[in-house]
């Protein structure tokens, strides 16, 4: 956040650039701190809370070994994986592995887990990082298509509504938008699937995903319903934000000035009104995209798309802690980075943001 008050630097562009750089550095440190807190909380939830609830180092080790392992093997394994260490030590090892990698000794020889090491899945023994990268394209595809769709429609409807405030279009659009924000995506998704796929066979059935590199056409075909479902929800919210923002800006003095100068109404709306009204929208957009990149849980599970959100649910249902922590950190990383990018863009684009 930029401070609310402060003075513009009168010392010229060099000093101004210095302020910008300091601001960027401060924000980056803030973001890193935020990730640190999230990582501690995540770790405590998955390795601290179960301890309080009666889990022992052996039961953790048993998750890797399956039910058949005897007590002695469990103890041996728990020792090797460091489950007997104090909690802070385990946390430190976990963090260290993410940055520099680590070596696991399963007794069958040493196995190296390279730098972004989030450990191995309890169930499949896959490296969590590989699983994350494997699922990422699905979530990125879903988010990308949907976000473009909702940004364009949401802003367009919002602007038109604001310009024709009180008209039939405005009232219809705002009623629709309110209904849109009240519709859960899994309900719309299910209904869409039922009608468009099951009844009329117009779109791909649930659970289909074709990679972009295999066939762009089929990629879009397999994602069109999830895109619309996800976009509907957000488009409705964005239409409401945009309308409110536009109504505020169009009442400002600088709009009156622009009109008084004799500018064409279209120029007033697009160059002056929309530009000011869009800044907060872009902020929210950045955050929403960041949030979704960590897994569009509801849409993915409705359509059976095996992205990060699906992985998360799957991991949670099977109590696969390393995987859950991996997904959570991944998701938090996207949110924090999105936050950071938005803040920095803001500082560069909007001259009203003070950097002190």
């Amino acid at each position, binding site marked *: 956040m930029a401070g609310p008050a402060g003075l513009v630097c009168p010392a010229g562009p060099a000093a101004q650039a210095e302020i910008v750089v300091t601001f960027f550095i401060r924000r980056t440190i803030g973001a890193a701190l*935020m990730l640190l807190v999230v990582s501690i909380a995540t770790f405590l939830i*998955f390795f601290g809370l179960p301890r309080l609830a009666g889990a022992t180092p052996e039961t953790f080790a048993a998750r890797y070994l399956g039910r058949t392992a005897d007590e002695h093997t469990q103890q041996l394994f728990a020792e090797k994986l460091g489950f007997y260490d104090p909690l802070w030590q385990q946390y430190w090892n976990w963090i260290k592995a993410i940055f520099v990698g680590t070596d696991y000794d399963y007794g069958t020889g040493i196995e190296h887990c390279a730098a972004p090491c989030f450990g191995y899945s309890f169930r499949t023994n896959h490296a969590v990082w590989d699983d994350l990268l494997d699922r990422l394209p699905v979530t990125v595809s879903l988010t990308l298509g949907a976000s473009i769709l909702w940004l364009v429609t949401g802003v367009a409807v919002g602007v038109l509504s604001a310009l024709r405030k009180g008209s039939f279009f405005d009232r219809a659009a705002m009623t629709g938008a309110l209904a849109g924000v009240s519709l859960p995506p*899994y*309900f719309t998704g299910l209904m869409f699937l039922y009608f468009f796929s099951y009844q009329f066979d117009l779109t791909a059935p649930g659970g289909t995903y074709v990679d972009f590199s295999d066939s762009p056409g089929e990629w879009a075909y397999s994602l069109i319903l999830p895109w619309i479902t996800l976009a509907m929800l957000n488009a409705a919210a964005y239409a409401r934000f945009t309308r409110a923002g536009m109504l505020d800006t169009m009442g400002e003095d600088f709009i009156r000035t622009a009109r008084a100068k004799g500018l064409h109404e279209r120029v007033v709306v697009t160059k002056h009104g929309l530009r000011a009204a869009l800044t907060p929208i872009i902020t929210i957009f950045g955050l929403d995209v960041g949030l979704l990149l*960590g897994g569009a849980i509801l849409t993915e599970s409705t359509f059976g798309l095996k992205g990060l959100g699906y992985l998360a649910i799957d991991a949670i249902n099977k109590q696969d802690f390393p995987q*859950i922590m991996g997904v959570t950190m991944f998701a938090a990383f996207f949110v924090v980075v999105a936050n950071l990018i938005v803040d920095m863009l803001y500082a560069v684009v909007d001259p009203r943001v003070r950097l002190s």
Partner: protein
Amino acid sequence: MATRTDTSAPEGTKAPAKAIEGRSLGRIAWTRLKRDKAAMAGGMVVIGLILMAVFAPLIVSWLGHPPNEFHQDNSLLAAELGGLPRGDFLFFENSGISGDFLFGLEPQNGRDLFSEIVYGARVSLLIAFLATLVSVVIGSALGVIAGFFGGMADTVISFLMNVFLAFPLLLFAIALVGVLPDTAFGLSGNSLRIALLIFIIGFFNWPYIARIVRGQTLSLREREFVDAARSLGARGPYIIVKEMLPNLVAPILVYATLLIPTNILFEAALSFLGVGVQRQVVGEPGVTWGGLLSDAARNSVVHFMFFPGMAIFITVLAFNLFGDGLRDALDPKSKR
């Protein structure tokens, strides 16, 4: 009254409101709210839903069958169709909708969908209301402290708010509900789950309230009446409780009302994902609309998706309509 009817004039609201003595903000808001048809309709539906939740057993005994009763008779469920209900109604094919079963039957196990929907309101509203209360208490307290004392307190609380907003909320909630044991704090089964859900949903949403309250407190702190109280020797806690809080009630009320539908959606999402309140075969059924939807997802029978989905939609829409209306009515700058 004559001056108040002319509210369509853009600048006619503020001055006349001051000119008429003895009308509290509450009264003004109520007259405005009464004129807002959409908000009133939303309010009525909300009241209806609350009554439905409270009197669920009574309603079900009039219009349906107990929610834990299975109707698997071959005259109701067609064995040759894999347990789909017999009978169509409009475009609800194989729904079994009739005067006896208003919303039809659940495929395979043949429970009365109508009574399940009625009972679903209980879980949904209970969790949404109490979770909102948790958010409001935590959010207002921290928001006031941050706004009023500023300095270090503000820095820490604002940082906390940002951390919470950076959390992948839904993911965290699911994970939390997932790792917790079956018995804790002397509670077990669904009562423990409900308590946990209330706490988790409420706990993750406090920053939304805190942000609003902090902003309001920051501007109230600079007002003359606070200076006056301070110059008369009032201390911080007194000023907060007696001077600030009454002025914060309106915004808190509005955002609490708007948080309820968010929480309803949150709870429904958790139930849809299978980590919400669990269905019971005996006693309090623990039906959730989200849970019904996730069962329906495996069946592709349209009535089974439609009714629970519409229940969520109508409830959330009603709260949103009412909340929007309330915000407009309580907003002193509102031009309507």
